[in-house]
Each structure stands twice: as C-alpha cells, then as structure tokens.
C-alpha cells in the first residue's frame, strides 16, 4: 500500500514526465500551426465564429506564433517546478489553464484519450489545491485522488464493456481490422495475429482484463497487479498503434488507483 506522501511523489514524477513529453512534442509541432501550415489559426479561428468579436480578437492574439512558443517555454518551467518542488496552486492552476489553451488550439483534442486523461488528472489536482482552503489537506487529497481513480477505472471498464457488446470483438475480427488500419499496419499476410484462434484469445484477454479492472478496489495488492498488467497493455497499444501519450497519461493515474484501493481495503477489511 502506498502512503499519501509516496502517492503524491509518484504522481508528481509521473505527471511531470507525461507533461514534459507532451510539451516537447507540441514544440516540435509548432510549424504546422503557423500561417502556411495545415493547422493555421487563420482558418481555425472560424471555429469561434459564434463568439463575440472581442473574444475572437483575444483568441487570435493569444494564438500568435510567438505567444504559443513562449507559453511552451513557460510550461516547461512549470513542469520542472512540479518535478522539483511538488504541487502548489500556482503550478497546478497554470498547467490546467495551459492545457486548455493547448487543446482549444487543437480543436478540443490533439491525441484523444490521452488529452482526456491528462485533463482528468489536472482537474483532480486543482480540486486538491482549492479544497485545501476549506478542508484538511489529507481530505482534499483523498477527494482529488478518488476523482482520478474513478475516471481511470471507468476508462478501462467502459472500454472493455463496449467491446463485449460487439460481435466483431468477440469473434476476433475487430482486432485484426484495427491492426491492419493502424499506423504501423497492415499486418503481414503470415502474421500470427491473422490466425482466428490467436485473434479470439487476444480479444477476450483484453475484454476480460478491462472489464475486471474495478477489482482493483479489492485492495492495494490487486491494484498493483492490475496496474502492472495495464503497463504491459499500454506498451502494446504504443507498439501496435503508436499511441505513446496514452502510455504515460494512464501511468500517471496508477499511484492514485493503488492509494485509493489501499484506503478502501483499510476501511472495509481493516488491512490491504
């Protein structure tokens, strides 16, 4: 079982790494967002066609090329402050606002699920920082960590359950179709994944593991095992689909999951 300081420290390090990876990637992707790039704000600003003129002017100003890059530099500074000093209202609040700034620039999401989970974690940390004005810090942290944990469990459970309801996943055809369409695809003609029995076994392994993820709440030991499997799962997702940010975004949630599982088993069973 993780103690609260251990959980905070693990969260601090993993979130720092995840945000740093994202920010350096955004730095490298600045050029496609310049005036002649695909993601030019000159086009994208019409997403705000419904907004008031002053708001459109404000967004055009803050999404200028220089401010964009300046923000990324400041963001690296904030991430380093998290890594070296831990969380406080200033660095967490600014990172949260900065993430919104990044996501609006990418029309709401750049990398889908990893953006969602990053926002979930930062929202949980904002809750922690704000709640400390009214309640004991330990209570505030418990609330924030549970917020992250519930979303992490929901993400696995829902992802598994929707597969369970779809015959393409149950009979193994879906996994082959997705691998063929993936960024490293298509699968080789003689790939072992094309064997129906292998595809069915892999599909059911994912479905059952994802659907059973709420079992982490049985105790910290269970949570450690399920999170270790999750680590392998996310590595495979990276390896086959190129989704590196998912690996880190979900890793960040594991300390919260293990901590909350330990807390729950203490309350419920009196032990881990």
């Amino acid at each position: 079982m993780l103690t609260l300081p251990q959980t905070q420290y693990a969260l601090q390090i993993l979130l720092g790494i995840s945000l740093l990876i994202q920010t350096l990637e955004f730095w490298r992707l600045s050029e496609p967002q310049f005036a002649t790039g695909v993601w030019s704000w000159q086009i994208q600003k019409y997403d705000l066609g419904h907004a008031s003129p002053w708001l459109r002017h404000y967004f055009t100003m803050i999404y200028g090329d220089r401010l964009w890059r300046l923000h990324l530099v400041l963001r690296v500074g904030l991430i380093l402050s998290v890594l070296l000093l831990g969380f406080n209202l200033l660095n967490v609040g600014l990172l949260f606002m900065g993430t919104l700034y990044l996501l609006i620039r990418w029309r709401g999401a750049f990398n889908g699920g990893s953006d969602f989970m990053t926002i979930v974690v930062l929202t949980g940390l904002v809750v922690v920082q704000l709640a400390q004005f009214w309640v004991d810090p330990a209570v505030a942290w418990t609330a924030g960590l549970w917020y992250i944990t519930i979303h992490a469990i929901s993400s696995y459970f829902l992802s598994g359950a929707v597969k369970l309801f779809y015959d393409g996943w149950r009979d193994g055809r879906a996994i082959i179709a997705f691998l063929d369409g993936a960024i490293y695809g298509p699968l080789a003609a003689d790939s072992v994944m094309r064997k129906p029995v292998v595809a069915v076994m892999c599909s059911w392994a994912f479905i059952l593991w994802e659907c059973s993820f709420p079992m982490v709440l049985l105790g910290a030991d269970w949570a450690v095992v399920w999170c270790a499997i999750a680590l392998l799962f996310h590595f495979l997702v990276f390896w086959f689909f190129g989704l590196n940010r998912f690996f880190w975004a979900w890793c960040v949630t594991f300390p919260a999951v293990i901590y909350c599982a330990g807390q729950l088993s203490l309350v419920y069973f009196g032990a881990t």
Partner: protein
Amino acid sequence: MSDTLVIISIYLIFLLGTLVFKSRIISGPWLFLFRSFLPNWRFYHRVGPLPQIYVRYCVSQIWNEWQLIQPRAVRRYVDLFHNPENNLALAMQNLVEHLAADLRQIDNPEHIRTLVTYRLVLRFARLAAQKRCPDSTIQQYQFQLRMAPPFGVATLDAVVLESAPVNY
C-alpha cells in the same frame, strides 16, 4: 452491506447503464472545444465505415491517379518518449473523421466548403500533394473523401465528397 460497497455497486450499475441506454447527443461549438471535460472512454469499440482521403494533383496539364493518404510510420522504441510526427499523422486522420462527421450532420452538403474542417483538410491535401511531388510544379490539386466499408476497402463508388480542383 457497507455504504462503500453500495456506492461502488451504484457506480458500476451507472456505468453499465450508460452502455445500454442511449441519451440525446448534446453538441455545440463550445462543447466541441471543451470536449476533453466529457471524456469518451470507448476506444476502438466498433469497426465502422472508415473515412479515407484520396489526393491527386495536376502537373503539366496531366492529372495523376488518386492516391490514398493514410498515417503510416516505422516502429521505433524511442517514440515512446518523443513521437511528434506520428501523433500529428494521427491527428490528421482524426481531422478526416471530423470532416466525415460534419458531412453527415450538415443540412446542405454545399455548405461543407465553408466549414473549418473542410478548409483544414484542403490544406492537408495540399501538403500531401507537395510531399508526393516535391520537385515538379503542381498546378492544381483536389481531394476525395471515401468511406471504406467495415472490414473492406474503399472503391471509387465509395466517394462521399470531392473537392473542386484548387490552384496550388
């Protein structure tokens, strides 16, 4: 049964309920931009029609064949730590999927050309043409949006949108 177990049970029943009962889809321009606050955890849940972009360009008054533009990459361990190009390629594919979604929702298909999604895809097509023909002088280019059927391949009759030729 303790309060905690009751809460967890209600929570799991609620999650299952969200899968069984379909609610009205809420949409709006601000909701679209802030959709990260309403996470959708249904990853790779169904093999549906796959929107694909085909591009062709005109050099010396001759149009080349339509070429499928899809994200493709070489697998490397280092990408776990720094993977901007592949993530950008995946974002481009998401953009194509948004265009297909916009096309389904729009009342008058002619208005699609005024949408941000369409104009961004047009830029994407220009970039794709430029990458495939870096040395020659492209005069015009255009794109097609085709819907590949589930478990199938997009053919010419799967075209759902074709841009007019655009001067390079």
